């Protein structure tokens, strides 16, 4: 019983982070209909930026937790956002009118570029960040206990805050309205005076900032990362996006949480060696039986 509850806590925090990354996939897919393969590697870059920001801040003698965490978040989000913008500008915008296959191959190329560039710049060895926030809440249940670290609570708080802010932006602001209009019909939106190229760039930047948020949170919690972390977590976040219904924002968050919970339960109860196999199999099964996901609309082919 306590194992299950502990895994549910772990799964919920992991799932909320999957949801953050899945937002990047789902928004980009919604607006230009492509799978942004490099998104997982954008997350990977943000892990490195987190460690770099912490190292820089402590170099300048800033040691208190709120300042470090705030400074790291701002720094990582700004720089990762710039990555998102540049990737779109260099690898995807010149291919706006090409076949989907060409865009997909370009995205895979971009993913390889990011991985190898970070590997060359920072070395292939594993990197780490010092533990920032220690301590935990301990709940006694029957014979065992469930431990909720403050870090996990912090992750949940920031992740849901990030999702809340994003939902507000998309639903209530002018930028959000333009995003939704472009998603519904790009040509019509541009006729009505929306600079769709700029909106697409903005979507890439938003996706990258959400990935940056996830990168900071996961890196602070796990402490260790290397240049290859983006690959696995990217596929899992994509699974979350598909599970929730690709193109749907609440779906991405819901899918992330469901995937995180089911994966944690599988790892805790059945086998942790095969937990990645479980997630990938889940992806294949969803795509075969319910490709529109939980909250997505079925895709209609138009001539």
């Amino acid at each position, binding site marked *: 019983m306590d194992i299950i509850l502990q895994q549910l806590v772990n799964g919920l925090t992991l799932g909320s982070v999957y949801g953050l990354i899945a937002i990047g996939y789902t928004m980009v897919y919604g607006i230009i*209909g*492509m*799978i942004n393969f490099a998104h997982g590697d954008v997350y990977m*870059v943000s892990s*490195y*930026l987190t460690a*770099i*920001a*912490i*190292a*820089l801040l*402590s*170099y300048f003698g800033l040691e208190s937790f709120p300042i470090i965490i705030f400074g790291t978040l701002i*720094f990582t989000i*700004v*720089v990762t956002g*710039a990555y998102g*913008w*540049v990737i779109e500008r260099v690898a995807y915008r*010149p*291919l706006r009118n*090409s*076949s*989907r*296959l*060409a865009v*997909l*191959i*370009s995205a*895979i*190329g*971009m*993913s*390889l*570029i*990011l*991985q*190898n*560039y*970070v*590997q*060359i*710049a*920072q070395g292939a060895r594993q990197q*780490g*960040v*010092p533990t920032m926030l220690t301590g935990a809440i301990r709940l006694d249940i029957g014979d065992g206990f469930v431990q909720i670290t403050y870090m996990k609570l912090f992750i949940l708080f920031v992740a849901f805050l990030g999702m809340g802010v994003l939902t507000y932006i998309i639903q209530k602001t002018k930028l959000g309205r333009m995003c939704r209009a472009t998603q519904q019909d790009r040509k019509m939106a541009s006729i009505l005076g929306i600079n769709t190229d700029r909106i697409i760039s903005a979507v890439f930047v938003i996706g990258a900032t959400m990935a940056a948020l996830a990168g900071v949170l996961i890196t602070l919690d796990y402490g260790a990362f290397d240049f290859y972390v983006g*690959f696995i977590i990217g*596929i899992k976040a*994509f699974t979350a996006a*598909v599970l929730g219904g690709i193109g749907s924002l609440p779906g991405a968050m819901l899918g992330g949480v469901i995937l995180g919970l089911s994966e944690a339960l599988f790892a805790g109860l059945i086998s942790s060696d095969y937990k*990645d*196999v479980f997630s*990938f*199999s889940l*992806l*294949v099964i969803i*795509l*075969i039986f319910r490709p529109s996901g939980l909250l997505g609309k079925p*895709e209609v082919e138009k001539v």
Partner: protein
Amino acid sequence: MSQQTKGINIVSALKDTVIAGLLSLIIFGPVVGVLLDGYDFTFQGADVAFIVSIVMAGRFAISIFSQTEFGEAFLYRQATKDDGVVVTAPGYKSRMRFIIPIMIVVGLLVPFIASKYVLTVVILGLIYVLLGLGLNIVVGLAGLLDLGFVGFYAIGAYGLALGYENLGLGFWSMLPLAAIMAAVAGAILGFPVLRMHGDYLAIVTLGFGEIIRLVLTNWTSFTHGPNGISAPLPTLFGLEFKRRSREGTPFHEFFGLPYDSAYKYIFIYLILLLVVLAVLYIKHRLTRMPIGRAWEALREDEIACRSLGLNHVLVKLSAFMLGASTGGLAGVFFATYQGFVNPSSFTFFESALILAIVVLGGMGSTIGVVIAAFVLTVLPEMLREFADYRVLMFGILMVVMMVWKPRGLVRVTRTGFATRKGSAK
């Protein structure tokens, strides 16, 4: 396009340059400039300055170039380019009919001239030719992006190793069996997925490739996990290529030759060459048959094909299975050439390398794939000191090729047709 000569606007070029410089400072500054070392770091200011200045110089050059008359003409050509297929005149005789026999003769002579090291590199090159040809049917002809191609390669390689260990099957029985196994795996994976949108196929196959690798790594009781498993060598009518044979006489004793480890590579090479030639011929014929034309038609416009009555699932499935079985064949050769297989040979990077071969060689072009496979596998062997930059080069290659020449360097040519004399108009 305006015809009057306008001056080059230096100010706007400089503005572009400064913006590009600032962006590259944000992008490269932290990641390149701050080299992490434990929880500490060292500054690498010179590297950042170098990269930023290259970006700024490049941006400035592009800004100036695109404003010159020549540059405008270049951009115009790029925007309106049409690099589709080249249709040759009916009755056109390609020069290839002289080149191909020469190439085959040269290919057959290679093992007797080349040193053992060169021979092993060429065998590896040929294995990638086989992989490239397989993926070219799937990606190039049918337009289905398969990112788990390495899964079929692994099925072939592990098929040989495990078949030998558990069932005592040798190279010759596993060669067709592995092709069939890979094709069946392709059918099981492809049939449900091919009904859906093309992009999902990429993700599903990527997941499939990873599942295969993870299972091979974790199922230690069957596959021996990361330690790998040994694979048998091919035999010549029962003659083995080992120094000592458990049963029967080894090859070198039978012919009274001194033992040389190069014999087995020569033998593998010759079989592999024949298989590659057979696959090349089959692919060449298939692209001229209705099924090959259906693949390409589906790639270009799926909705039009379906409304003309093509069964898109079966047509795609045939391409997918054929590509998978070619991957399985390549896997058998890889296992026997290495004498040993382990899961680390079947990572996503391998799939990306095969995809890079297809992209560079040209979607659907056979000769291009052959050249690209050799360039991308033999070149890294020669340029060992740039080994760290290999993946970076593949990535840049993919992006640049897609932006610049999405159909690859070698253009696809197609024979023209004319109505025969006396036939109905």
